[in-house]
């Protein structure tokens, strides 16, 4: 199958990636070729196969609800592109 430009734009929107027109064409072709390759799985009958989501039989792991020291706020905010008054700063939302 070949992805249309519309589909590429939709998936780029889902992925929150701005693409140039040239990138839409190029990624569209490359994604189509990878998806064609993935279509080779369709020859395998899998109706009765249980999907394998996780290799270990892991379950939710809980710990005691005890307060622990967190990381110092200044150290965490040191990596923020923009911070003010101990908080992250982003462009206006409303």
């Amino acid at each position, binding site marked *: 199958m070949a992805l249309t430009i519309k589909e590429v734009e939709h998936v780029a929107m*889902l992925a929150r990636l701005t693409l140039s027109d040239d990138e839409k064409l190029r990624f569209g072709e490359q994604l189509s070729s990878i998806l064609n390759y993935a279509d080779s*799985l369709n020859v395998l009958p899998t109706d009765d196969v249980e999907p394998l989501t996780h290799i270990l039989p892991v379950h939710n792991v809980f710990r005691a609800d005890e307060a622990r020291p967190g990381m110092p706020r200044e150290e965490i905010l*040191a*990596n923020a*592109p923009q911070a003010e008054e101990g908080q992250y700063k982003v462009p206006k939302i409303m």
Partner: protein
Amino acid sequence: MELYELTVHELQERLSRREICSQEIVKSNFLRIHDVEDKVKAFLTLTEELALQKAQEVDKVGNYQSIAGIPMGLKDIFCTRGVKTTCGSKILANFVPPYDSTASSRLNEQQGVLVGKLNMDEFAMGSSTENSAFFATRNPWDLERVPGGSSGGSAAAVAACEVPFALGTDTGGSIRQPASFCGIVGMKPTYGRVSRWGVIAFASSLDQVGVFSRDVRDCALIMKIIAGHDSLDSTSADIEVPDYTAFLDGNVKGLRIAYPREYFQQGVDDAIKEAIKKALLKYEELGAIVEEVSLPHSEYALPAYYLVAPAEASANLARYDGVRYGHRDFEAGSVVEMFSQSRAQGFGDEVKRRIMLGAYALSSGYYDAYYLKALKVRRLIANDFDMVFKDFDVIVSPTTPSTAFKIGEQSGDPLTLYMNDILTVPVNMAGLPGMSIPCGFDRGLPIGMQLIGRAFDEGTLFKAAYAFEQNTDFYTMKPTLGVK
């Protein structure tokens, strides 16, 4: 013999006999690094000052146990407190983690000396380290060739004797393939064996931390330190970690070794097939039982992987939004525009491809056809291995279909590059331990042999690997850092 050429266990012996001190070793390694790094380009960050400081502290205490005072390198995917961690990406070019990964902090607790952070494909996506946002690393056996990837910096640094050992991560072959290309030992343990806490996530159901070293004993030593349950990673297994060095007895009499016929097809070079066949004869000579088996779903592992891994990546990499850390586009007008522009500017092409592929496979209308289908095929692949391990202890195969390729040779078409992982990906899909050890050369380039074991049975892999290593001399060969 210079100090930088010694293995971890050789350094341990000399330290414990007080013939040398840590500062001498660390200085020797930095001499080597300054001498060859222009050619190899394995490191993204060097921590020389910190390393010399640490070595001085270790020498002051004078307690040379475990890896105290021994230099080490970390793939730049491990968070290191106060030391820049980029994951090979522009989006994290200035990220300085406020904490250490569990694996690296266990090495720190044993007083290992970090000498630097190693180059990698961006977010561990790639098989050549050419996808690093910063520069390409070179293969010490031929500087015009790639070291493999994604942990290419780790493999090249160990092969070039810049460090005696290094940590890497392996999601689809990212330890075993570069170990094979660079002629060294690389182990990807069982999924859940080593904590992933503080390791920047790519595909969380496949990622696993592992070791690069120049011999099997070193690999066993380091694995013992980093393995084991960690309450900070709920997928780390609470299963006892044996003393892996106890498996290094060289005895493979009666060991049942299987070689899957599918791993000798799929475009594997003749020279590589021959080298593995010779290795199997060596095992027979040493008393092992060697038989051909079938893993019938092998050819479907790669297409299934390229749905599962990107799907998980698309979720994991959603966190890079320019808000809390990483690159931000300050020109953007709205928040959503800021997300999309920051990500477009910060991520490289391969990362964008995989995020979009994953988002597509998970999107409404395609989830069943792609993602769910891939998970079902994943079950079939795991079942194949289960069947074989009912009758056998170890599976042996080539690690890669070819030896190291030239820089730029495979960068045109993503699918061509993906094919490098065809023999390593099934092991991640099944969550099993896998290892690559040197087993020959083709026109001066190293060939790797892959050993696959039962879940949590790394010990048997060490046993089999050690017996082969000690009865051959491939592991003693050193690269010349030239061009072939």
